């Protein structure tokens, strides 16, 4: 394989892998913002919280970060459930869920950040797993396991979640609740209960995404803020509420970023990715893969 072809193949592969990680991080926002109309801007902070707790379990119990993420998921579900109850009682019930709700989630983001600073300190922290330094090589294609493993976990999480939402009554109720809560109530289901569980589910994904984050890069408490733009971009590009759409949107963003970084310079990468988002909003405002 000649050098340019090899570079192109490696770049595309890196973009796809990166997209998988972006998709997992944006999954919670896709559920909260895309399906429930809740602008959960604190989601990246929950991802970071998941990352720190995964480090803790890794150090205490020598637990693999992803196993730690799975173990933490039920706790995160409860946290998400509780957050929605507070949000509902304080804002949504009184119809003040737009601007005040946004402020609430901003506050939550800073609260989690402050907690992380107090509990874990401000130094960079990381985790070591058996695969973090391993690289698979096929000819000139190099695939680091620290990127491949999160990609695989992300793919599995998205497929399982999609099947769960598609094949269960709860899943269909989640997809229906933002569109027509009255119809849902007429079927004997509480929209508030469905939304509580759905935000719990969205937050549970943050525990696993956190494990991915800490495998990919070292973390510090303020890192969550850097992911706010990206997770909402993926959610909007993918079609606001479509899980496979989010995956496709994330992969498109990942490929756009890596291709630009390789062939035109890394400084242009965010401009290309967000330029793509602007074009999507201009010509297909409901996202590339909206239903």
């Amino acid at each position, binding site marked *: 394989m000649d*050098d*340019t072809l090899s*570079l192109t193949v*490696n*770049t595309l592969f*890196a*973009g796809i*892998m*990166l997209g998988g*990680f972006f998709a997992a991080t944006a999954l919670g926002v896709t559920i909260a913002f895309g399906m429930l109309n809740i602008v959960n801007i604190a989601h990246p902070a929950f991802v970071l919280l998941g990352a720190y707790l995964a480090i803790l379990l890794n150090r205490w119990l020598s637990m693999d970060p992803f196993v730690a993420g799975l173990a933490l998921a039920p706790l995160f579900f409860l946290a998400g459930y509780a957050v929605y109850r507070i949000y509902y009682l304080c804002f949504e019930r009184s119809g003040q869920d737009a601007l005040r709700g946004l402020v609430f989630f901003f506050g939550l983001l800073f609260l989690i*950040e*402050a907690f992380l*600073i107090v509990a*874990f*300190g*401000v*130094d*960079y*922290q*990381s985790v*070591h797993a058996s695969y973090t*330094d391993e*690289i698979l090589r096929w000819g000139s294609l*190099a695939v*680091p396991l*620290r*990127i491949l493993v999160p990609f695989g976990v992300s793919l599995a999480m998205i497929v399982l979640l999609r099947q769960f939402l598609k094949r269960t009554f709860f899943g269909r109720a989640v997809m229906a609740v933002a569109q027509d809560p009255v119809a849902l109530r007429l079927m004997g289901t509480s929209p508030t209960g469905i939304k509580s569980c759905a935000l719990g589910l969205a937050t549970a994904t943050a525990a696993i995404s956190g494990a991915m984050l800490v495998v*990919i*890069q*070292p*973390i*510090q*408490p*303020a*890192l969550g803020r*850097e992911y706010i733009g990206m997770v909402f971009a993926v959610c909007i590009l993918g079609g606001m509420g479509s899980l496979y759409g989010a995956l496709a949107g994330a992969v498109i963003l990942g490929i756009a*970023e*890596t*291709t630009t*970084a*390789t*062939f035109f*310079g*890394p*400084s242009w*990468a*965010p401009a290309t990715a967000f330029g793509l988002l602007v074009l999507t909003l201009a010509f297909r405002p409901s996202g590339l893969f909206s239903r």
Partner: protein
Amino acid sequence: MPRSSHRRQILGLMAGLGIAPFARGQPTRRPLKIGMGMGLTGSVAANGKAALLAMQIWAEDVNARGGLLNRQVKLVYYDDQSNGSLVPGIYTKLLDVDKVDLIVSGYGTNFIAPALPVAMRRRMVLMSLFGTNSNAQFKYDRYFEIKPNGADPAVDLTAGFFDVVASAKPRPTSIALVGVDNEYGAMVLQGARANARKHGFKVVYDKTYPPNTTNFSPMLGSVAATAPDAVFVASFPPDTVGIVRAAHEVNLRTTVFGGGMVGLQYAAVKQQLGNLMNGLVSPEMYVPEPTLSFKGIEAFLSKYQPRAEKLGVDPLGYYVPPFAYAMMEILGQAVEKTGGTDQKMLADYIHATRFDTVVGSVKFGANGEWEKGRTLWSQYHSVQGNSIDQFKRAGRVHILAPAEFKSGDLRYPYPPSVS
């Protein structure tokens, strides 16, 4: 018993125990306040907190000796949240409301530059902590930078790296330059280009990357495709880890790989990269090599390290903390020798004096930078596993430049076969 007699007895008892305000031997004057904004949360908090701890240790040491000018030293600080826009307000408050006697900067160029105009308006001496060429545009005559960049920071900072590269045989002819797209990266790359020209290296790649980049493999792939003889990187901590890993992943083969990679000096990053650090050439501020022996550094580190571990900040403390302590030593010495806090006298004294500190001998030039740069260009050797204790012993980090501190020779090519 009459109330006044009772009060006299209590006061007498307190005086006897040495805890009354007028107890013999205790300073009776108001404390000498030193104010600063410091990034205690946000992106630079790791260094901000470590620096503050070092300054607190200095204040405790000074106060244990009776304070400065018979006044206890009190540090007044506010969290600038790693947000430069908050810095001018913080320094205005420190000077107008808290009435501090002296000011020092927070950590880093992005937080020194916004403090400088306030200091200049009030004609205050500003001791600066790890700015890179912050005073280039202001040219303020009461500014003093503790980071040993040298008289021309943009060029002097990276000169050692290029001297090291030029020493390889056969002599490298091409170099790739990569830097983070912020003030630090821009300044360091500017100096690197000048040094590349000086040595006659052909620049085959010269690009910046955005600060929130997650995957560096595409960029390093492009760098590797240009087959440079040396690769120079100016990066911030999380990027440094990503770049080193990506170099490993894309199988980067070159003669010398390194540069102004911030982060390699931190225990957390050393711990994470482990033996992937072997062969990298990077600036260190202090390493426990036999060629570096400064009076007081070990005593300082023995106080710093146990407390840092509890606070969750850099447990090694080889990067910013000794310099934060030294900066305060210089300010303290100037106050004592001039007998007050007159800003002109302090500035004149600091300009004219060579100071002995925990980071060695410090003499400032006319622009407030170190008269002679002393960035320790170092190479990592025989790093095994992820324990940080190995970095507390000599031998893991060899100093390549400057010559007076050299403790080992450059080993090339990169990567070394043992890693």
